């Protein structure tokens, strides 16, 4: 079994600097602009359908909406949110980052089936052969990255951008394969020794080059893709010691690795999910209040960590990663405004999404909720609710993200307009 240096834990290096004594370290440095082509993305996906009324959506004056008893309206930097005593991390987050945050309200995901909503929210269409936002943006980064779109968890719809998508595996198996960690060979003392491995790898490099040199104008795309894949695989192997993928036990670990992947220049986009198992823990058909409280608490505690890590990590195009990274937080659906007989909330096709960081106009809310708890049509340019506006759908979200990432959205989402109101 190959051994290497223990992976770097960014949280370990930075210690417990999240404590009060280090607050001064967290003052955001002077904002530097980064071009959309250089912008990076971290997607945090809440699997199962979150309840926007717990953080984003104000339903206090709507008799249809069951808000929590002790929830209160709150505001920071012009951004309204819902505060709750048992969720201080939510308030901490908005107090600190509302000036860099935009919220989309009443986003329509036209289904209430989880699997259909995964596809819709991530690709804007019903076709499961479409390409998701993270994959499109990652692929646009081209050969600059060995793992242009790194998927640490959650649904993945690479579509035509498959060669750019690298799955880490639900148990971080990517580390094992990248390290060549054998089971049978190791147990039987049959691992190749390092000198032998090096000579074998050298032979393979020559063999692959010879294979690639057979490329002609009429050669298959399979051969071309094989050559790209080989180059990427070698790159991933080179970085394997620095990614502790097999030790992702929680969202904090995933955030750590996501930031590392960006900092190493390994990836342009990283996909995380809450919970890290990819199970639909947000799917609160029973005990909505308890479950959503636990999930939102964990989510926002980790969003605080994620932002802290981004701010503390040097960027590749800007002084810090925070200035060149957009964090996209969303879920495949919302939940009914009312509780059911089991104290839960069922599926609802309107939800919220949150964008934080690079390229985002902070303190902005786009859209809203009408009296039947459906989304308002909005003017994409101003974000204002207007009868003559457009329905906020997944394609609008996609158009916005692709524009932020210097990708022409038209081939992917047609004439869906990006939400200029949230773009700085």
């Amino acid at each position, binding site marked *: 079994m190959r051994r290497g240096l223990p992976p770097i834990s960014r949280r370990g290096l930075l210690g417990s600097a999240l404590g009060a004594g280090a607050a001064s370290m967290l003052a955001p440095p002077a904002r530097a602009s980064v071009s959309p082509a250089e912008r990076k993305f971290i997607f945090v996906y809440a699997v199962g359908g979150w309840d926007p009324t717990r953080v984003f959506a104000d339903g206090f004056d709507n008799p*249809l909406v069951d808000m929590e008893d002790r929830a209160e309206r709150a505001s920071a930097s012009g951004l309204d949110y819902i505060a709750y005593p048992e969720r201080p991390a939510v308030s901490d987050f908005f107090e600190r980052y509302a000036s860099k945050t935009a919220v989309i309200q009443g986003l329509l995901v*036209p289904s*209430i*089936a989880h*699997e259909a909503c995964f596809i819709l929210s991530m690709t804007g269409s*019903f076709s*499961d052969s479409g390409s998701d936002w993270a994959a499109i943006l990652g692929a646009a980064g081209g050969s600059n990255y*060995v*793992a242009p779109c790194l998927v640490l968890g*959650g*649904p*993945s719809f*690479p579509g035509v951008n*498959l*060669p750019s998508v*690298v*799955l880490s*595996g*639900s148990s971080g*198996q*990517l580390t094992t*394969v990248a390290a*060549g*960690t*054998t*089971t*049978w*060979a190791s147990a039987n003392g*049959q*691992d*190749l*020794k390092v000198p*032998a491995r090096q*000579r*074998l790898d050298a*032979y393979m490099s*020559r*063999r*692959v080059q010879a294979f690639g040199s057979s490329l002609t104008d*009429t*050669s298959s*795309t*399979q*051969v071309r*893709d*094989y050559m790209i*894949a080989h180059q*990427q*695989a070698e*790159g*991933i*192997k080179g970085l394997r010691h620095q990614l502790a993928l097999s030790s992702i036990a929680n969202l904090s670990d995933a955030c750590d690795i996501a930031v590392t992947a960006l900092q190493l220049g390994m990836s342009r986009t990283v996909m995380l999910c809450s919970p890290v198992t990819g199970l639909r823990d947000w799917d609160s*058909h029973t005990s909505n209040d308890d479950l959503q409280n636990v999930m939102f608490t964990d989510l926002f505690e980790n969003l605080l960590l994620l932002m802290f890590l981004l701010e503390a990590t040097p960027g590749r195009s800007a002084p810090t990663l925070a200035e060149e990274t957009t964090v996209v937080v969303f879920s495949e659906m919302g939940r009914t*405004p*009312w509780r059911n007989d089991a104290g839960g909330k*069922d599926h*609802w*096709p309107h939800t919220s999404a949150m964008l934080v960081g690079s390229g985002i106009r902070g303190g902005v809310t786009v859209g809203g909720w009408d009296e*039947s708890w*459906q989304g308002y049509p909005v003017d994409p340019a101003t974000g204002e609710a207007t009868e003559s506006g457009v329905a906020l759908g997944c394609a609008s979200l996609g158009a916005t993200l692709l524009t932020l990432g210097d990708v022409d959205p038209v081939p992917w989402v047609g004439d869906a307009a990006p939400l200029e109101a949230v773009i700085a």
Partner: protein
Amino acid sequence: MVGLLLTLVGCADPAAEVSPQEAVRRLVRVSLDLRGVRPTEAEIEQVEADPAAIEALTAEFVTDERFFAHLVQLYQEIYLSETEGIDLRPSNVPYDDAKPYYWLVGQEPLQIVGQVAREDLPYTEVVTGDWTMAEEHLGETFPVEWPEGQTGWHKTRYTDGRPAVGVLAANGLWWRYTTTEANANRRRANALSRILVCHNYLDRPIVFAADIPLTDDAAVRDAISNDPTCVGCHSSLDPIASNLFGFYWSNFTSATEGLTYHEEKETMWGSLVGAHPGWAGREISGLSELGPAIAADPRFVPCAVSQAWSLMARRKVTPEDAATLETLTDDFVTGGLKLRTLYRDIALHPNVLGTDTENPEARLLRPDAIGTAVEQLTGFAWEVEGLPVLQSDVKGLRGLAGGVEGVLIKQPALRPSSTILLVMELLAAESSAYAVTTEQALPAAERRLFTGIDFTETPASDETAMREQMQSLYLRILSRRTEVDGPEVNALMELWSSLHDIDGDIPGAWRGVLDALFRDPTFLLY
């Protein structure tokens, strides 16, 4: 039929020359496409001598047990049921790690399809058979006939009175596709429609009309029945859903709810859906008539054909395929709806075989076939915690190897990716170590690969035997003939010597050669 076959292999002129190399290329494609293993030396020699022999060999391949096993994996791309992320969590599953259990449960409908092919039954048995498939974990927990001590997958029958409707009665299908009170089996209805008649309701954009207040249950129910934007789907979807209440559970962790059929719940459609059980616009009595209704649906057979075509051609059906699919469908019907014949015909079709173009596109080896091909050559069965590594996801590598996990990943990889190459590299390391270690202990006559050496030879002592062994490995692993002093063998000899020079380890040097052959690009691309 002969004429059709000749046309299918692109041999409209029987005298057309097919080079030995091209004959072998075709053989490799058919063998890997159907059986998930490379052709043997004998099979290669057969087509080299007579390229037309591929027809007879293909007919044999679809009777091979490995074809039936490969079909099970192919249909995972349609049923999406073989997943460790299954929804139901009954509390009485008696295994320490329940994940392999759920994976096995999800295989049930796939094994039914495989069994239909194994017994050469008409495809309609998939929805009309009065049997199911189980192995020992399922046999000991499901209400099925199961002799004590029996192991492995076997045909059996449910004993709880559920209707005889093939996969429609399979626990494995409904554990994968669960439902809720609000959903009222509609998700399941769409799954049936997508899987069996190729009609996915979710392919249509769903218009949530702004004037339908979703907060008003009565208004929503009225819209489902009367609003044009809803009726288009619900008028046919809801009657399908109404057939399925025998599998309706209120408790997802109940020890018994999910295991048994609930005849007493069959009429719950009245309150939860409102539409009488039906199929394709015709009322039926319920699940017992649903299977025959689907089998009689004019979409059922063409759907089976287009699915098989898409699985084998490794692409979605296009309008240009229409004439081909019509011919295949006619032959499928004429031949008694036999999957073996259908897959044989498709495997030999010029578009799938790559004989309709001068530069046929290479095809990427499927994850399960990566495993079976290597196992056939080396005897190495790659498993982790009781599951095949390349067919499982939580600890396995199916997703990284381009496979379909079923819930979060629904499309297979059709082009090489970095993780596929890394997985292949790891398998090459494992299997080459296993092969060399085990074969050293065997007499030459019992070995799969190293039949020409004794692991004592060096270039100085017997270079000829070594070179001939390299040729043999090339032929068995990559299905290519090489010259004993040609560039391929020379390169492998150089590799062998460079490895041997490190510490004089002869078996280790052969292990490296084997490793390199499995990592060759042409092992994955064929």
